[in-house]
């Protein structure tokens, strides 16, 4: 009786193991899909890579790599998707999105100009918003995007066409006329007031010492005052440059946030 029971147990165990093959392609795919839906993209990609390649697997791997910012690997996978596949169109959109995310603007612009496909024109224009002043007319620019997004996009267009830059020359000239005013012009009010007080004080001390026949101290304060004055002109010009780079940085940050929010105009 014991022997029968033992053999029965052995048989069911072996059979159960055969039936529940955890590493079958179906199970791997189920597990990978679960990881993907849980946004565990790195592990999802590793699981998908164990499966034989097809378009849907490549697409999922590419999306996973895109999500974890392994853009080159994602681009490779998107490029492998067959032209005749149902996923080809959406993969091309994702491909251009990946190029935008990885800031490969040269590649993106070259590919879209060569393809002459009007569907992808919007990515070219978005890329222009990031990189250059080659933007087309406003109507032409807005034509490529959905009509309900035109208000916000026209805001970005205007900001790119007419960025609120400050002129280095103006800042320098203002500071040459009234010390510190160039810094106030670039938004550094505290620095501007400090500059004005320092240069004024040193000039007064110099004047006061010269009038009281303390020539050495007069020259000392005059020299110091001159260097602070010249430094303030230089600093004002640089301050305008820093202001401009902050404008660029903020513009790009807002644009990226907006595009992320709109999923780069790719329908789910």
């Amino acid at each position, binding site marked *: 009786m014991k022997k029968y029971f033992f053999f029965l147990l052995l048989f069911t165990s072996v059979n159960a193991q055969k039936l529940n093959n955890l590493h079958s392609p179906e199970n791997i795919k189920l597990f990978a899909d679960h990881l993907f839906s849980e946004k565990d993209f790195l592990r999802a990609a590793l699981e998908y890579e164990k499966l034989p390649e097809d378009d849907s697997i490549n697409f999922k791997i590419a999306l996973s790599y895109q999500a974890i910012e392994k853009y080159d690997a994602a681009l490779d996978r998107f490029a492998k998707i067959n032209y005749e596949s149902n996923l080809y169109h959406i993969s091309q959109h994702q491909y251009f999105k990946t190029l935008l995310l990885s800031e490969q603007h040269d590649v993106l612009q070259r590919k879209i100009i060569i393809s002459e496909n009007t569907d992808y024109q919007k990515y070219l224009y978005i890329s222009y918003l990031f990189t250059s002043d080659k933007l087309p007319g406003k109507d032409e620019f807005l034509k490529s995007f959905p009509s309900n997004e035109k208000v916000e996009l026209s805001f970005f267009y205007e900001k790119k066409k007419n960025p609120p830059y400050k002129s280095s020359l103006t800042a320098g000239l203002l500071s040459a006329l009234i010390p510190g005013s160039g810094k106030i012009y670039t938004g*550094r*009010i*505290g*620095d501007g*007031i*400090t*500059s004005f007080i*320092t240069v004024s004080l040193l000039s007064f001390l110099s004047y006061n010492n010269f009038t009281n026949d303390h020539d050495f101290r007069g020259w000392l304060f005059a020299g110091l005052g001159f*260097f*602070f004055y*010249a*430094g*303030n002109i*230089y*600093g004002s*010009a*640089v301050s305008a*440059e*820093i202001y401009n*780079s*902050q404008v*660029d*940085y903020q513009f790009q940050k807002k644009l990226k946030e907006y595009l992320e929010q709109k999923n780069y105009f790719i329908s789910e």
Partner: protein
Amino acid sequence: MKIICNIFLFLILLNNLSAQTEKEKWGKTETDYRINYHNEEIKNPEPKSYGEFFLHSVHSAYRFFISDVDGDNCPFQPSCSAFFVESVKETNIFQGSLMFFDRFTRDMNIFKKGNYPIIGGKFYDPVEQYTFTEEKNLLMPE
């Protein structure tokens, strides 16, 4: 048998005594509490010209007579004196001096908080931002 055991124990004792060879490792170490200078070149300058020799002499004198006595009080990183040396190296004596006087004005501003990113408890204000040449976007405060 007893003799063999004693010899064996003696050998073990010898072996254990000679096992620790890196005795210095456990010794007291000299701790340097001074904050590192912005770069090693400034700490140990090797002047290449008379101009640099003069610059480093002034900087060393400043460090010896003022900075070391006064302490690490500059709110910026790099400190104003290190900024001066670096700015002269990056550009020239004239532009470097202008950059230094501009920095000194910024140092005197009592409302500077919020204008600079804070790294290591100091306002990060590197030379590269003021040379008109480098990309500045990466250095902007959030």
